[in-house]
């Protein structure tokens, strides 16, 4: 699980079916007792009377995959977890759709809670992905993380 660099990117919004399939595929791993899932959803933020209708994501995908792989490896070393999966959208994701899906599983809940938060923080801080917020009047602004 921890060896190969995986492609985290999914074109467009991440479907709820993708998430349920991912959960289903863990039911054979009966050493798992706790899953923690983070989902980021595109907000229809209002900025000076305009409303965000989508975010268009671009990335240095090769480096992004590499950094996510490093984040995974470090987290497996730090916490007694069984599985970790990271997915991020590329291209246009409409308001209300899911653009990031991070899934951590372990025997016990303490590890998944701690690991998931750290991983999400690290993805936001260290992975070269760029979000362009598209407004309903065809203007845009660049998303900023904090």
């Amino acid at each position: 699980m921890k060896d190969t660099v995986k492609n985290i990117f999914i074109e467009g919004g991440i479907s709820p079916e993708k998430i349920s399939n991912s959960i289903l595929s863990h039911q054979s791993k009966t050493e798992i007792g706790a899953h923690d899932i983070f989902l980021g959803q595109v907000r229809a933020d209002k900025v000076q009377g305009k409303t965000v209708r989508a975010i268009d994501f671009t990335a240095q995908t090769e480096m992004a995959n590499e950094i996510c792989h490093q984040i995974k490896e470090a987290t497996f070393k730090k916490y007694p977890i069984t599985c970790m999966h990271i997915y991020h959208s590329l291209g246009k994701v409409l308001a209300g759709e899911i653009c990031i899906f991070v899934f951590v599983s372990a025997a016990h809940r303490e590890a998944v809670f701690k690991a998931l938060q750290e991983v999400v923080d690290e993805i936001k801080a260290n992975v070269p992905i760029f979000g362009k917020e598209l407004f309903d009047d065809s203007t845009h602004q660049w998303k900023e993380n904090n």
Partner: protein
Amino acid sequence: MKVKLRYYGKLVERIGKSDEILLVDDITVRELLSILEKKYPQLKQLSIKIAQNNRITNIDETITSSKIDVFPPFSGG
């Protein structure tokens, strides 16, 4: 040495192109940043990061790769 610079996110807009070739000789990241800021004064307020070989560089590191990524702040998630 010929170096291909690739720009990302809002930098593409600010600079007006997504990549370009630069001829440089044994320079550090600090020197590259200074070249870029002279050429594109509009980049000065942005906290730009430079990557080579899919890794964020240190400021005193020498540019050795022929492909360099120039990033604005990340905004994934």
